[in-house]
């Protein structure tokens, strides 16, 4: 009898305190969310690069971005890739080698595959890949997306 009562009482206490904790806890969670600084969603801006057929397959087009950096736009068949031409190792300019089908940095023989992933040289040991940019196709035109200043 007493056991039953005490179990009931326990359950009741649990639901009361548990309920209070759950509800006020949720409120506290909101407060945490309120105080958490928001990561600024990056504003992207499209910039016209070239007509789709303006780049030959197997070649790259050097494109100057508004922030002064340069992107290499590589076309392989119908696939377009945009990569920064700045080597993540020490900042030399990489270039596309058609034969080897890779990007090569002449300063310390760094190599990157066609996706910009470091495969040899100091960038590979440091696991630093080339920065990529998003490309967009609208109609027959190719656009590159960069962060709004």
């Amino acid at each position, binding site marked *: 009898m007493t056991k039953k009562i005490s179990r009931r009482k326990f359950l009741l206490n649990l639901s009361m305190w548990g309920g*209070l904790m759950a509800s006020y806890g949720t409120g506290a969670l*909101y*407060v945490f969310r309120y*105080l958490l600084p*928001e990561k600024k969603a990056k504003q992207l801006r499209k910039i016209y690069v070239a007509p789709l057929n303006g780049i030959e397959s197997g070649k790259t087009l050097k494109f100057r971005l508004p922030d002064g950096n340069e992107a290499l736009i590589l076309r392989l068949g119908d696939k377009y890739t945009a990569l920064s031409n700045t080597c993540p190792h020490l900042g030399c300019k990489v270039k596309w080698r058609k034969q080897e089908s890779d990007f090569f940095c002449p300063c310390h023989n760094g190599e990157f595959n066609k996706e910009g992933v470091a495969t040899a040289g100091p960038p590979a040991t440091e696991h630093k890949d080339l920065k990529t940019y998003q490309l967009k196709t609208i109609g027959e035109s190719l656009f590159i997306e960069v962060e709004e200043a």
Partner: protein
Amino acid sequence: MFDKLTKWVLERAPVNTEELKHLSAEPVPNHLKRWWWCLGGTPAYLFIVQVVTGILLAFYYVPSFDHAYDSVRYITEEVPFGWWLRSVHKWSSIFMIMSVVLHTLRVFFTGAYRAPREFTWMTGTLLLGVTLMLGFTGYSLVFEQLSYWGATVAGNMAQAVPVVGELMARMLIGGEKIANNTLTRFYVLHAGVLPVAMVVLIFLHIVLIRVHGVSQFEFRDEKGTGKTFPFYPDHFYTELIMGVSLTILLTCFAIIFPAELGERANPLVTPAHIKPEWYFFFTFRWLKITGLTFAIISTGFFFFLMFIWPFIDALIRKFKPKSEISVWIGAFAFIGILILTIWEAVAEH
């Protein structure tokens, strides 16, 4: 194991747990079982809500002429849950003023202010004043058109006080006209000075209540029983129910009527209709029908009378024992304020 820990803690924090139990089990009179006897506890709970939400709002609020409005806009429109906290803060302030007023009325009409509880009443009226000032300064901090011009009117009103008015106005708005100084002043008052004053007064108020014990009030059917019940857990639960209900209510109000943001304050354009917040409607209407200086002096006098009413009441009762004239005067004053408030609320301007 558990005993060891308890011992370790108690050695370092030598609290007498028995005393604590005894204190929290302070007997409260039976009539407090009735729900409308929590009107004193309600503003206390709301005050805690105000402190919490206020501190949170202060994380993003910037008290400067150029950024105040924008920071409020930022809180309302951009920060996650900012609108909710701001709305709860706003509604809590309104509830707080209403409950303080109701509490005051209850205490007045039940004569609970009579000797030996005069000081309790006086700290209470001061708390009412501080609550109203918190409302005014908080509203001004939003720095939208109406709150800006409300503050301007307040400055002009302060100016109308004879002799020291000029000085008061300058002290209040921190210069000739509302500018950066005004906002920082209001901010310091709203977020620093007034809350601290409030904490001190609440402390005094509660200490006085505890020292005197809650005034006994007996209903006919309970006459002579002198029953009491312990504060914890009985009354604590009651207050907890009250508190959670209030929180629900505040959140519902925040959802249904979120705090809005009017036009940005523009010192060059006076809005067609200036209106203060509703709790100042009566002064505003009074001001319109009696003229500035008289209204200020009479309002000040009114609050002074209220402050010292226990002594006036005692004086009246000395000459006319058993007289209920205080109740009549109170009723008259309350109805007067109610009429002025409603008048201002329905009047176009």
